[in-house]
């Protein structure tokens, strides 16, 4: 099994046999690995047609839908874990979706590019332009990402909504970062709920 580095971290956090809802599941790589190797069951939600068909070919339960329309159709606590992998920063209604996650599942794993990463800070303060980096490969005018945040910002949003942070991890490149996470990490992972 050869998962993308960031997906491997999420994979490791998900207990065997969990019922998983993977929001923005892309081509279903994570879900497929969870079903095959961890006896999980679940569904992926994806909006992009090519990704949906790729996930179909993998044989995972993929549903084409727009997350912006919310999680209303899912019952309370109908899943063990919800995954929101590098999607939250591109959503209109970030706070609503975060609350939705907490209603539908017992815990959620959220990952997002860290705007507080030192290279991003450098580009803005010294370069005087919006950052373009490994986890944020877009320019300001063509980015799908509309809600940038740092680790600190996400901590505050969780606190405001009384969401407990169970675990936090940070990566730069394909390495885990343990110190000065908000400064040295380009990608953040939270296990909340």
């Amino acid at each position: 099994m050869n998962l993308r580095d960031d997906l491997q971290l999420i994979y490791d956090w998900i207990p065997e046999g969990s019922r998983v809802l993977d929001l923005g599941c892309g081509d279903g790589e994570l879900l497929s690995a969870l079903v095959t190797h961890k006896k999980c069951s679940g569904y992926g939600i994806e909006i992009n047609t090519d990704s949906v068909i790729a996930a179909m070919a993998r044989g995972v339960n993929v549903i084409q839908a727009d997350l912006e329309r919310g999680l209303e159709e899912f019952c309370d606590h109908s899943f063990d874990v919800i995954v929101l992998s590098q999607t939250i920063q591109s959503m209109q209604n970030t706070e609503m979706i975060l609350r939705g996650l907490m209603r539908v599942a017992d815990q959620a794993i959220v990952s997002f590019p860290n705007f507080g990463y030192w290279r991003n800070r450098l580009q803005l303060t010294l370069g005087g332009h919006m950052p373009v980096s490994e986890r944020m490969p877009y320019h300001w005018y063509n980015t799908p990402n509309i809600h940038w945040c740092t680790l600190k910002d996400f901590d505050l949003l969780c606190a405001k909504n009384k969401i407990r942070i169970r675990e936090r991890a940070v990566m730069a490149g394909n390495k885990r970062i343990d110190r000065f996470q908000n400064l040295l990490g380009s990608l953040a992972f939270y296990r909340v709920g």
Partner: protein
Amino acid sequence: MKNAGSVGIVRPEKIAFDTPLTLSNGRVLSRFDLMVETYGQLNEQKSNAVLICHALSGNHHVAGRHSAEDKYPGWWDNMVGPGKPIDTDRFFVVGLNNLGGCHGSTGPTSLNPQTGQDYGADFPVVTVKDWVKSQAMLADHFGIRQWAAVVGGSLGGMQALQWTIDFPDRVRHALVIASAPKLSTQNIAFNDVARQAILTDPDFNEGHYARRNTLPGRGLKIARMMGHITYLAEDGLGKKFGRKLHSDGYQYGYGVEFEVESYLRYQGDKFAGRFDANTYLLMTKALDYFDPAADAGNSLSKAVQHVQAKFFVASFSTDWRFSPERSKELVNALIATGKAVQYIEVKSNHGHDAFLMEDEPYIRAVAAYMNNVYKDIRS
């Protein structure tokens, strides 16, 4: 799919059933025939059979041609054939004309063995459940215990869904395309307008038009014209015809002036020439009655809770008669009960008829799904 081939020249076969069939309304057909076409080879384990259920005006002629001179192939020739998404090199594909149909299966135009006359209006209204029952008898005829897949669009998708509910262990995969778990009020309303056009045609003669040598062609034509409009989307229709005129300038009369009028009248006439009015009536009734949730306390989740099949559900963005929201109802019920389901909402400007067309992501998605069905039956 450009390199994919055709199943070639095909020949329909009439299969007789002498076991009585009790219908939903209590009436019994002592015997009946089903007109069937098959493509590909049934494997030794009889595990590679795919049933294609037809929609409102469909029949058994799914793919290929009946003769070299045949102008048009079967109604789903783009989907079924060697190398096509429903690959006849892999699957044994069965198409049939439903009970009550007018293309060879027992229906209003057949002889009633009890009277020696044609059934006409006396042919009982059949339901989706009845069709599924008769199709199970057809499966038995071929020695097929379990279908690799039951596939259908629109009314055909309803049959696929009903199959998974009535015979959970006899369907491995269900493909429900441009369909709905029950008709909307608006759909029932449209169906009644179509029926009224037929029922009020002076040549209808209470359904016994054949005995009186009349044909309610006008009613059937109007019903089809109205239906045809609702199966298309303004996107596609507008692009195709716009306000183009058939001749120069307005005639200030009621003849054919706009291209779209000419097109619809042609379609209506063509249909009225090949379809039976009583069949049209009873097929639209079968649509109206379909509501598996009604048998389960109005809960679709309850209706599908014993389903074992895996599902592929597809809808089309401009289909306003069977809108994506209707397909989502089924998808949500399947998710709520933890069933396996894949769902795609295809962007298309073909409206409801898109399920018969070749929108690229749609064809690719069905191919991907059927490829997994094939892997599944070989594992």
